[in-house]
């Protein structure tokens, strides 16, 4: 049996790989989409939060800024600021008030970004790189709301928030966790279903076929019953079963033919081997005058009878061989044949055929014709001759039939 190389991938590995890749692809896609929407959502949320904080902080800061109570302003800014966010105020004269002056990158940025402060007239946010870090800068105008000078600008409130490229809300983790669990469950179920409905029957079928193929001889056509197999596999199984039965039938016939051929070959060998002793007995009988005529005739008939039987066996063997190889014989295949042997064979056959009808069939061969060869197709010749003898026997009423063989320089006939 041909063995496959190890690098050939098994079908279940293919399916598993497909699942892993598909799962990863889906997860990555889900994750990316989730992150994108989460990022967008978070940024919007962050802006809204900042807007609210600015609004609230402004209301608290303006009264203190109006009476120049920087101590309180710094306290409020300090309370609003954190690790990720820094708030600062620029008053009308451009003084920067911030909670922690050690964060000088922001004050330096403000001093350098006069345009930014002007742009702050349109409240909003921008993203800026400050000392190699990205910040979301949100600014709002601090306006006095008292009755004396309503709407009077008293300063600008700026916030610097660490800009996170990937800002995650906890919900994205829940979402991704649920997606992963869902996909895992789906994969588990799908894999189980695929295993039961496809892989297991397929493997069973493969094992069954492999076992049958490993046995070497087609003694069994039984393929185990596969439960829950899909239609296509059942069809494959049935087709294979039919193929196996055909093969078994053919195999049986071949075995039978082989046995018959061997038997015939043996008989032919026996027939061939006993000819010489029979010929010796015949020759001896002609010179045994001491034996009474009656006994001599009886022995002669017995020898002839044995000769006929052997000839018949030999002929059957040959015809059987021809039949066995008949499909391969060609009518145009003409070979030189010893004509006496061919005739002797056919006469012996006929003698045997008409033995019970008490018809005596004789073959007379002139002495010089024993060595004659003719270019004939042996099968066709025998068929024609057989028909001629049959016709002749039907025509005669005496129970005597004689075949004579004569020849001239070119033809052998009678």
């Amino acid at each position, binding site marked *: 049996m041909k063995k496959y190389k190890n690098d050939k991938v098994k079908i279940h590995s293919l399916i598993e790989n497909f699942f892993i890749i598909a799962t990863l692809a889906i997860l990555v896609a889900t994750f990316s989409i989730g992150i994108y929407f989460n990022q967008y959502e978070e940024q919007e949320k962050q802006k809204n939060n900042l807007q609210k904080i600015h609004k609230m902080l402004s209301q608290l800061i303006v*009264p*203190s800024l109006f*009476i*120049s*109570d*920087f*101590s*309180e302003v*710094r*306290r409020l800014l*300090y*309370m609003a600021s954190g690790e990720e966010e820094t708030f600062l105020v620029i*008053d*009308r*004269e451009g*003084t*920067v*008030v*911030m*909670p*922690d*002056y*050690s*964060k*000088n990158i922001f*004050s330096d940025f403000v001093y350098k970004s006069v345009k930014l402060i002007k742009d702050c007239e349109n409240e909003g946010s921008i993203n800026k790189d400050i000392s190699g870090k990205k910040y979301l800068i949100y600014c709002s105008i601090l306006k006095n709301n008292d009755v004396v000078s309503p709407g009077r600008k008293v300063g600008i409130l700026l916030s610097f928030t660490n800009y996170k490229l990937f800002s995650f809300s906890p919900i994205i983790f829940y979402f991704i966790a649920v997606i992963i669990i869902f996909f895992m469950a789906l994969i588990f179920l799908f894999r189980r279903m695929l295993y039961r409905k496809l892989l297991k029957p397929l493997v069973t079928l493969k094992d069954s076929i492999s076992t049958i193929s490993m046995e070497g001889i087609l003694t069994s056509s039984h393929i185990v019953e596969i439960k829950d197999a899909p239609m296509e596999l059942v069809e494959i199984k049935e087709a294979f079963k039919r193929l196996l039965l055909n093969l078994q039938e053919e195999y049986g016939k071949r075995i039978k033919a082989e046995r018959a051929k061997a038997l015939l070959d043996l008989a032919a060998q026996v027939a061939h081997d006993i000819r010489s002793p029979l010929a010796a007995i015949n020759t001896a009988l002609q010179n045994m005058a001491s034996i009474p005529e009656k006994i001599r005739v009886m022995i002669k008939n017995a020898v002839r009878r044995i000769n006929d039987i052997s000839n018949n066996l030999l002929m059957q063997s040959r015809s059987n061989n021809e039949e066995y190889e008949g499909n391969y014989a060609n009518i145009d295949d003409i070979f030189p044949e010893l004509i006496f042997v061919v005739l002797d064979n056919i006469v012996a056959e006929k003698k045997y055929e008409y033995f019970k009808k008490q018809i005596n069939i004789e073959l007379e061969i002139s002495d010089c014709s024993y060595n004659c060869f003719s270019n004939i197709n042996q099968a066709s010749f025998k068929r024609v001759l057989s028909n001629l003898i049959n016709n002749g026997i039907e025509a005669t009423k005496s129970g005597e039939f004689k075949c004579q063989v004569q020849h001239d320089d070119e033809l052998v006939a009678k």
Partner: protein
Amino acid sequence: MNFNWNIRLGRISITFGILIFLFATLSAQADQDRDAIRIPLQAANIFFDPSGVQDTQSLLVSRQINCQLVRNQGYFSELEAAESIKYTSPKEIVFKISSKAKFHDGSQVTANDVLASFNYIRKSRHVFQNLFSWVDKIKIYNDKTIILCLKKESPQFLKVLSSTNFPIFKKEFLERAEKNPALWKMPLGCGGYKVSEFTDNSIKLQPINQGLPIIFDLNKTNQLNASDMKNYDIVSINVIGNSKELNNFNILNIYDPMQYYLALNSKSKFWKNKYERCKFLHDIDIKKLLVSYGEPAIEAIDFFPKGTLGYSSKGDFNSVISALSKKSKNYTELTQKETFCFAYLSMSMQEKYKIEYINSLKKIYPNIVMYPIKSTKNFGKDFIDSKCDAFLFGWKASYYDGYEYLTMFEDKKINFSGMYYKSLSEKITQSQNITNLNKRSLAYQTIVNEIGSSCVIRPLITVPVKKVYIRKKIIATGIGLVPTHLYYFGNVTRQRL
């Protein structure tokens, strides 16, 4: 022979042992000095006695060696010697003293020490008396508990108490220091550091539990060359020139306004009435002076610097002086002949600005002599005693309240002008009872206008930010939260490679 050799060997061994001991001691000292944080101080006269007006540099050192019940750490108050503070009623506050609060001699801080410290400050100090104006009585509940009873509800009581003006000293120390003021050179405080050495050139502080040692180098010129920065870790005095050494420092611009004032001696012969004083104050040209100071210095337009409760951006104070100056006649011939004595507080004046000040005044009084006043403790008295005509000094606040500036007019004993208005003093004291910030701010402005109309002082220049240089290898957490003179160095660490 053998006996002599034994004696010699013994002597050599002893000498060798002493040498090793000395070497080890010196090495340990050298290691300590190498680890120490080095800070230049802009002062020739550092003192730790809280009874006088302490300059920022004295306050900076005091901050390290003294403790208070509660301490202002920028935007929140932190318990220091107190374990807990409880308002049992709006007018009664119970302070429980922590058992961890100890003086440098190892003894625990007791209620008696706190009371003695309060009493000492109340009795001897003539500024920042607002806290005591609110206190009705102080009761000792037990050794570790002290109760402050207020005359009325004072929302800003804790804010003021947590400012840097109320340190605690051991009672016995205060009693001994009263008799021997020299003891103030090494006060028995309860802060994280103690003074280990105090010379004319430096003050060395030793940490009690944690922190790096500190060496303060006393810089008499009030400025530091940039090339000398290599010797220091944290520099808050003015740095002149440029040097590559500056690249090793982070520079912080901390909002900590310093306002420079020119005060007049009302008894001076140069002016007969307040209008002439007003004219003089009004005529001082500070444009070149401003150029000399450079950024971020700005012209002071109000008695308070911007950012202080009570500040008015309208410039009313100078307007009052300006309006009154118009009533004065022209300067007399006296201005050309007599010598004008210009006194200045040493630590408020950098060498490089002296000439600009002289030039500003020379336009009015050509014959100028300068007179330095070194001590901030009794600068008002020193100025009056000097009989000088004008006096330049800088002033800054710790919690940005106008009272911290007005306090210089509150007590007769610190008065520098030769004039004392009792009603003004009372108004200043009464302003501290106003709880509403808007109303207190207005009250301050009213007082300021009154001061302005007396024409004894004029704010000249405001330097709103303080430049602080911090060596990049130094980690000084929270240094930007408070003015440098209020910063505690106990948590400062040095990065090691």
